[in-house]
């Protein structure tokens, strides 16, 4: 909700705190202020009004109330209970069918001569993120943003008259009825939409948008002004089915008090009388079949302290409630509290505790240690999962987590996103095979000759969701040592048996899939079954964890591989050679991996060691050319040759 400082200034008696201070106060005690913007001569706060405060705070009066309480400053304008003064009521007929509205007020205002919207009004609308249209419409919009009560103005002379009455019926649309909105959008009703109808046709979508047939324009001299309270559920459904959402519908959807309609009408009449010197009310009818009962809440005096964990003096509690506009009666050990009419969100004592806590300030809460508590034995599988994952990682397996949606399966989502697979996966093997295939292309960059991966995830076969475990193996193209499906099965099942303390037969029985694709192997196990056959599961142990590493971006440009082998004197360590290479290679050497080593005894009895390295070059900015990499290799070769006893092979 965009809140204008200029408009606020008109609501307060004295000087307001700075906009920054207001933002901080609101954020810590009411709603987060997401930003402050300068708009012309105004400062505008972007206030994130919480969903449960849409009843009263999608308005300047509501937010002003919060500011008043937080900073203890007086307002000149507040929410008030008002009575409407009916006049010439027989010229207006209002029918509300099926309790589709709680209240419907119509005021006829005449004497609206040609005028311009005053400058302050135009500027206020700009601050609200709206634009000026015409003085009557501007006034309606302004009152909505000021009070939270949406209003609608009908050109009186375009309204059908029937036997001396203007008629307003709040009802459901019938199938096939049509309606043309102010924006000239034609709505064909399916039946059931909440509408306001005149003597003959639909005048507007209730609480959403008015119709073009009665639209206010430059010729309008008399209006029928409507302030009503429509059924929140019906407005929401109509807005959804017609796909028309407005500032007005947003307020009705969340529900507002029917008492607000009287305030809205009164403010609107006042404003129109200010703008149009001859404006005056000639008729007013208020259809208000059932005044709401204002709930009384019994608040135990100890409840705030009991829930917040901080002692707040009884007098402070009462003070806060009264400042909110509550009627408070103190009893022996309780308060009887009647919330103000606009606070539809307050119905149980805990709601009041929240008001007290946030206005008193949560910063007053000092932390209190949890009492002693004996843990129950854990039946959950998460800890076992964690122990298994650690074990697999220490045996060379890296963990993958994949998305759950697929193009086929047993369980289908009724409302998938566009371009999204609609089924839930029934196995993890297919995605692991795909992952191995993409990753093996980067094997050298990752620095591994063989990739070992695993995933534990939920799968959704028709029998019911369960956890599945996959282990994957893939070998780089041209790698010498390749493990076949059987060998990998043996390695994997041995590891699972060791990790979970179950014998290899039981592990084998839990295997539900074994798939080879080119040089990748993926094994799938029923994880739920694995855990159920273990007699004693491994224990999750607390241990000092290493500090977390942070992520460094990787390049999307292709990498270049080069090999280099060098003879070195006996006693040379591979790290020495690596260091020489790294120091001379330049910044684009991303990885160096020792892949071969052998010793040779020479004719003269001395020993030499040959080390062979795989080098990976890659740039963050461009694809590397052979010529460029050749340059780096020359620099490396030169550095190696210059080292005593080294000879390039």
């Amino acid at each position, binding site marked *: 909700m965009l809140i204008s400082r200029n408009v606020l200034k008109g609501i307060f008696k004295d000087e307001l705190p700075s906009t920054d201070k207001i933002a901080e106060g609101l954020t810590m005690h009411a709603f987060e202020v997401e930003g402050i913007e300068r708009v012309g001569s105004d400062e505008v706060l972007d206030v994130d009004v919480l969903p449960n405060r849409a009843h009263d705070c999608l308005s300047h009066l509501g937010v002003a109330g919060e500011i008043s309480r937080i900073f203890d400053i007086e307002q000149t304008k507040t929410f008030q209970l008002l009575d409407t003064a009916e006049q010439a009521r027989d010229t207006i007929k209002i029918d509300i069918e099926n309790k589709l509205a709680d209240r419907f007020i119509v005021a006829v205002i005449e004497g609206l001569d040609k005028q311009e919207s005053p400058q302050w009004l135009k500027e206020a609308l700009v601050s609200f993120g709206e634009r000026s249209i015409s003085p009557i419409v501007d006034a309606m919009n302004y009152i909505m943003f000021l009070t939270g009560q949406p209003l609608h103005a009908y050109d009186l002379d375009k309204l059908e008259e029937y036997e001396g009455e203007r008629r307003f019926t709040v009802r459901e649309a019938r199938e096939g009825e049509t309606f043309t909105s102010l924006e000239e959008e034609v709505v064909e009703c399916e039946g059931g939409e909440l509408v306001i109808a005149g003597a003959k046709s639909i005048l507007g979508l209730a609480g959403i948008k008015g119709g073009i047939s009665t639209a206010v324009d430059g010729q309008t001299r008399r209006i029928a002004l409507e302030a009503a309270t429509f059924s929140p559920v019906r407005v929401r459904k109509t807005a959804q089915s017609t796909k028309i959402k407005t500032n007005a519908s947003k307020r009705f959807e969340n529900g507002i008090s029917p008492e607000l309609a009287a305030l809205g009408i009164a403010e609107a009449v006042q404003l129109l009388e200010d703008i149009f010197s001859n404006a005056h009310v000639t008729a007013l009818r208020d259809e208000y079949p059932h005044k709401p009962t204002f709930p009384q809440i019994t608040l135990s005096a100890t409840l705030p302290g009991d829930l917040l964990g901080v002692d707040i003096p009884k007098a402070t509690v009462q003070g806060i409630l009264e400042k909110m506009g509550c009627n408070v009666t103190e009893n022996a050990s309780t308060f009887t509290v009647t919330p103000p009419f606009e606070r539809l969100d307050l119905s149980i004592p805990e709601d009041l505790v929240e008001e007290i806590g946030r206005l008193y300030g949560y910063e007053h809460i000092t932390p209190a240690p*949890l009492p002693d508590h004996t843990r129950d034995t854990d039946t959950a599988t998460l800890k076992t999962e964690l122990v298994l994952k650690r074990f697999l990682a220490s045996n060379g397996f890296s963990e993958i987590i994949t998305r759950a949606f697929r193009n086929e399966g047993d369980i289908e989502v009724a409302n998938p996103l566009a371009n999204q697979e609609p089924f839930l996966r029934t196995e993890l093997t297919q995605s692991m095979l795909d992952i191995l295939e993409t990753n093996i292309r980067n094997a050298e960059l990752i620095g591994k000759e063989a990739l070992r991966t695993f995933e534990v995830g939920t799968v959704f076969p028709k029998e019911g969701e369960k956890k599945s475990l996959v282990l994957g193996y893939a070998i780089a193209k041209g790698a010498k040592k390749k493990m076949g499906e059987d060998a990998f099965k043996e390695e994997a099942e041995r590891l699972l048996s060791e990790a979970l303390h179950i014998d290899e037969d039981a592990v084998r029985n839990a295997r539900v899939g074994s798939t080879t694709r080119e040089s990748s192997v993926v094994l799938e196990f029923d994880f739920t079954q694995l855990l159920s056959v273990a007699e004693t599961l491994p224990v999750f142990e607390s241990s000092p964890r290493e500090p977390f590493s942070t992520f460094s971006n990787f390049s999307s440009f292709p990498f270049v591989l080069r090999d280099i082998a060098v003879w070195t004197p006996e006693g040379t360590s591979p790290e020495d050679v690596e260091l020489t290479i790294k120091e001379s290679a330049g910044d684009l050497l991303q990885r160096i991996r020792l892949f071969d080593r052998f010793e040779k005894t020479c004719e003269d009895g001395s020993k030499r060691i040959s080390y062979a390295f795989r080098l990976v070059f890659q740039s963050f900015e461009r694809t590397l050319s052979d010529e460029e990499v050749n340059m780096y290799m020359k620099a490396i070769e030169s550095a190696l040759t210059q080292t005593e006893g080294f000879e390039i092979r």
Partner: protein
Amino acid sequence: MSNKKGHLHPLTLLTERIVDTFTQLGFNIAEGPELEQEKYNFDDLNLPPNHPARDMQDTFWIKGIPHTVLRTHTSPVQIRAMLEGKPPYRVITIGRAYRNEAVDATHEAQFYQFEGLVIDKNITLAHLKWTLETFFASLLGGEVKVRFRPSFFSFVEPGVEVDIECFQCDGGGCALCKSTGWIEVMGAGIVHPHVLRAGGLDPTEYQGFAFGLGMERVAMPMFKIPDIRHFYSGDLRFIDQF
């Protein structure tokens, strides 16, 4: 000779740390299904049908199975924990949830959540503050200040947003905390009496707090991961860094 070390996914590293800390604080682990009943996901958590807040949940409904959803949060596990056991409760749950949202650098349709629930005779927001300060201290090292701001979630009342002191600039102001010195990390509050009743408890006898955070949301600044889509890419160039 070859690089034999495997790597755990950052979400698992975070999970380990959470389980470790909370086990020491006396918490048990609760679990629940990802395909969840509408009742546990919404109604029992004080979100009745036709409530606008329910619309905002962007829920995945299941074809052919009425009143069933992919859970939109892990909160239904709290209801199950209350129904399955007897109070006092001290549980955490970590699991996947789903929202029907367009995917971009900060939003995924599936994500991990971590939730905690403590219900006993006299549990207050003061206990919540202590629990969270202890948790974040173990996660980030050193003392971490926590503050509460007013917020709204249907299953707690009072409801708060929890901020921690920015761990990148120690409260001085930087890009991560948008110069405020604080980072928003989770929602929390005192469990709503309707929820307690749905869990079979008498709100006049038992009370407590609940909190929940999105794991990726916390992992991203901690591990300096710029794009949420990395978590589900299956790319070892990402995973092998941790």
